[in-house]
């Protein structure tokens, strides 16, 4: 368990160091997450899930993710320092929140639905295309 937490913090540290060295505009923990995904995928054989359910890393990760809500509270309380911004710009904030969330949701759902349907019908009518895909 402690070792698993060390892996997470270690990857975060490596991400932070890479960010500094390469002047990446990305946050350190995100670089660390990308590195850990790569490591997990490379270690897996590519067919079954690269992460076993019972492993300490999976248990620690799931435990942290399950309690993630608690971790946002300190940063979120900082909104009391931004109350002036909220009061002044409530209309752009509220409109931006509603419009961009609904548009993003609709765009993702529509594209996913229609593209996968298109690909699946083509795969059924054109076996050669399916073959080509399997080969890759």
């Amino acid at each position, binding site marked *: 368990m402690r070792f698993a937490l060390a892996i997470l913090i270690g990857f975060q540290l490596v991400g932070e160091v890479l960010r500094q060295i390469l002047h990446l505009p990305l*946050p350190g923990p995100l670089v660390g*997450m990308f590195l850990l995904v790569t490591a997990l995928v490379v270690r897996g054989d590519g067919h079954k899930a690269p992460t076993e359910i019972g492993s300490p890393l999976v248990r620690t990760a799931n435990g942290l993710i399950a309690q993630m809500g608690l971790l946002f509270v300190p940063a979120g309380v*900082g909104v009391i320092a931004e109350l002036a911004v909220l009061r002044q710009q409530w209309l752009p904030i509220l409109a931006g929140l509603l419009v*961009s969330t609904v548009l993003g949701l609709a765009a993702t759902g529509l594209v996913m639905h229609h593209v996968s349907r298109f690909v699946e019908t083509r795969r059924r009518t054109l076996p050669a295309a399916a073959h080509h895909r399997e080969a890759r």
Partner: protein
Amino acid sequence: MEAALLTVWTPLATTPLLWLAATIVAYAFGQIIQRACRNSPLAHPVLIAIAAVAVLLESTGTPYATYFAGAQFINFLLGPATVALAVPLAANLRHVRRSFHGVGLALLAGSLTSTVSGVAVVWLLGGDRATAFSMAPKGVTTPIALALAQEAGGLPALTAALAIAGGIVAAVVGGTVLRWLRVDDWRAHGFAAGVAGSGVAAAQVAPLNGLAAAFAALGIGLNGLLTAVIVPLLGLLWVAR
């Protein structure tokens, strides 16, 4: 009575322990309320906890810096928790292989629409740059959104509130909007929830269908990566204007 309260309060108010405990109690309180509301996404424990702590700070006249001195220990765990998101992402990455085109194009469409429309609406209605870049990453899971807002010159606290509020909007209207658009595919419902509403909306759709849960987890992770590229680019555009 009041004097007795003060003698307890005065030394406690300056130790980190008090605000550490207050944060955890406020969150537990939020979870109890959500359970009492039959897990409605409207009663989100994080929003309840933020409001409760904010009211407590205002009523006791405690500055945010004093509060954060205690709560920073919780805040620190956000880093490892963000790295931990790699585990569900890696576990669900195999779904990409089977719906490669759908996932790739939908991710691109959803991520661009969400970030660009957020910045555009704020700008059109007269909001300033800091507000626009607090809005831009709000579709992403909160720890990543926080870090991206900080990087691009937004207000991280505002982003944290917006990310959760956006997740609530997506959780409440998501199913209805998608059905209205005649999207009847669980993979699309799950992926859209993950991309547009991150963890909050994913929690709403995940119990409905296993495939939806997997695609929601995939949407959260992949959108985090793509938005991390889009938001800094948008930031450069606004400076260049």
